[in-house]
């Protein structure tokens, strides 16, 4: 691919210095329509929410270090795990990759100057912030924050006196933000690809975002309507879900999971896209099975939308439906396995370079595989009856969402950091942070598999003394994990302010974003590039490590 960023030796003012409007300082950011700045707005707001939810998680774990009351009462505990879930799911991990890295890199990777609807893009950030603020405000209103768990299950969510309505309204508004981002991405991919950028020359991260965007558009409205129905039921007492009024609580669970299970795939598919970008770059090999990986993203989006009722096997569903949903759950593991096998095959006989982004990807594969396999265990009808609502489930979904998507986000942060900010972080510190977070992460969540299997229920404030050793191990794991996170974020923030200047292509990537300068100019490219080669063709590149060694 040709260098389209301008003369190599001349660094031009980047998007960080040039704004799309006449304002300077904070207003130039708050009114920007530049996809890169909007991506960074999302990054900082999302990381703020993430830090808050990590603190809540830390407090929950600290409470559970010993049976009985340790640092808080049961009501506070219920509210904290609800807030932890709402913030982590709706404000961190769902918008995580599409809104931050999708916004920043999707247009650049397809050779466009921006997304197709830049103003809608900014509007969706404002919706995100509005939703986030309503969620925060709901915790301060009289009545206290919601204590229903992030799933808002009826009939409890209809009857509790806590502030469920603001929390539901927040999730409703956040849903619109997600839908608009999805619409923007689908249209951008269809209409804005550079000349020569055929569907099968698109980077796999773009394929992942495209599949995700469809799920965002098609599934999110259903949760919107469902949450609105709960609000109607609370206000007007209409018997939609409350059995005391003639409603059906299982119908709520169906409607809730019709969105919320595909939401898991909204989280994981872009993370799989990141992995598919990083592995070829650090193994110096063309990706193995490009088309299979691309189509498996679509297949996961399709099958993943049809497995929701595996959350409800013990909720009173019919046997026939249980059988169908169990079968579909097993089916969705096929495209996921295709991806894992293709990644491993890409690494086979590659010239592997163990830089921080690649290390995070290795953790992703290891942890996501554990999450995936335990998901199959939970998808088996007989085993599910034993494990339903135990901490085994908590461990399983944290292995997928945090061990998978969370580490995918960390990998993306370390991979694209030099491109986004034009500076490099300290690689040694980043490697230490990776080791500590991975150890802490596994120490935190793995004991939950064991105690869940032994019968420790999830969301319980108190427990029998025989579970204490596992809880202690898990809580110590949370301290190690938080130490790793502090080191990681400090290193990135220091790198952002004082790091060495990064070259245009520090890792030797072949996708289009590495042909622009670091950080990119306002319109990404001087002239829209013409694409002739695939995204993982390294035949013309030197290996950066070999260059450094010389």
């Amino acid at each position, binding site marked *: 691919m040709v260098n389209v960023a301008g003369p190599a030796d001349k660094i031009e003012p980047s998007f960080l210095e040039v704004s799309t409007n006449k304002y300077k300082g904070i207003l130039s950011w708050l009114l920007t329509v530049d996809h890169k700045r909007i991506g960074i707005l999302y990054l900082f707001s999302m990381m703020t929410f993430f830090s808050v939810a990590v603190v809540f998680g830390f407090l929950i774990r600290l409470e559970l270090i010993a049976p009985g009351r340790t640092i808080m009462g049961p009501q506070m505990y219920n509210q904290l795990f609800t807030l932890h879930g709402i913030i982590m799911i709706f404000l961190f991990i769902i918008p995580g990759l599409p809104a931050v890295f999708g916004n920043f890199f999707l247009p650049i990777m397809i050779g466009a100057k921006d997304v197709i609807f830049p103003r809608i893009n900014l509007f969706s950030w404002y919706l995100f912030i509005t939703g986030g603020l309503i969620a925060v405000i709901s915790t301060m209103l009289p009545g206290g924050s919601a204590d229903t768990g992030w799933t808002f299950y009826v009939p409890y969510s209809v009857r509790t006196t806590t502030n469920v309505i603001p929390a539901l309204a927040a999730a409703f508004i956040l849903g619109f933000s997600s839908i608009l981002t999805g619409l923007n991405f689908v249209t951008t991919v269809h209409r804005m690809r550079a000349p020569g950028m055929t569907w099968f020359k698109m980077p796999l991260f773009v394929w992942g975002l495209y599949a995700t965007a469809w799920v965002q558009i098609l599934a999110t409205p259903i949760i919107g309507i469902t949450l609105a129905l709960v609000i109607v039921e609370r206000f007007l007492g209409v018997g939609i879900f409350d059995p005391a009024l003639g409603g059906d609580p299982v119908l709520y669970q169906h409607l809730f999971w019709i969105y919320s299970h595909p939401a898991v795939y909204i989280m994981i598919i872009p993370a799989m896209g990141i992995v598919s970008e990083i592995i070829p770059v650090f193994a110096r090999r063309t990706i193995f099975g490009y088309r299979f990986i691309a189509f498996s993203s679509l297949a996961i989006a399709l099958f993943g939308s049809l497995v929701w009722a595996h959350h409800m096997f013990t909720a009173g569903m*019919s046997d*026939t439906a249980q059988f169908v949903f169990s079968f579909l759950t097993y089916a969705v593991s096929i495209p996921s396995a295709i991806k894992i096998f293709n990644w491993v095959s890409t690494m086979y006989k590659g010239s592997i370079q163990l830089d921080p982004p690649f290390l995070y990807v290795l953790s992703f594969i290891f942890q996501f595989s554990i999450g995936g396999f335990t998901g199959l265990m939970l998808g088996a009808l007989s085993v599910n009856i034993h494990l339903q609502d135990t901490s085994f489930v908590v461990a399983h979904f944290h292995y997928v969402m945090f061990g998978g998507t969370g580490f995918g986000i960390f990998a993306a942060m370390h991979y694209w950091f030099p491109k986004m900010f034009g500076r490099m972080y300290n690689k040694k510190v980043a490697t230490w942070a990776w080791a500590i977070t991975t150890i802490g992460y596994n120490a935190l969540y793995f004991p939950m598999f064991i105690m869940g299997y032994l019968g420790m229920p999830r969301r319980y404030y108190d427990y029998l003394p025989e579970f204490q050793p596992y809880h202690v191990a898990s809580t110590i794991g949370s301290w190690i994990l938080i130490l790793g996170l502090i080191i990681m974020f400090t290193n990135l923030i220091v790198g952002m302010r004082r790091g060495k200047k990064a070259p245009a292509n520090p890792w030797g990537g072949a996708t289009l974003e590495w042909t622009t300068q670091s950080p990119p100019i306002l319109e990404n490219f001087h002239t829209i590039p013409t694409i002739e080669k695939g995204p993982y063709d390294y035949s013309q590149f030197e290996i950066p490590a070999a260059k450094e060694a010389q």
Partner: protein
Amino acid sequence: MSDHHSQENVHVVDYGKYIFVWLSLLAFTGITVSVSGINLGNWTVVIALVIASVKSWYVLNYFMHLRHEDIVFKIFISVALITLAIFVSLTFLDYSFVR
């Protein structure tokens, strides 16, 4: 797209058609209300949804002018509707076998 739409695909629908569609929608609403009182077992949901689908077909095609749009819009909207149909049928697959 709207410029293109207004310049090249000018279409005039006479009021008679709109009134016919409106009356049909009212009639279908009447049928839905009257059918809801009869216990048809598993068919209750099917009939209610078929009537609702016919009504949305009218609204999409006439009031929202989908009839006169490019094929790409029709495909995109069909994908959304088919997805919804699959969601609804899988949900009621459970209800039709329960109890």
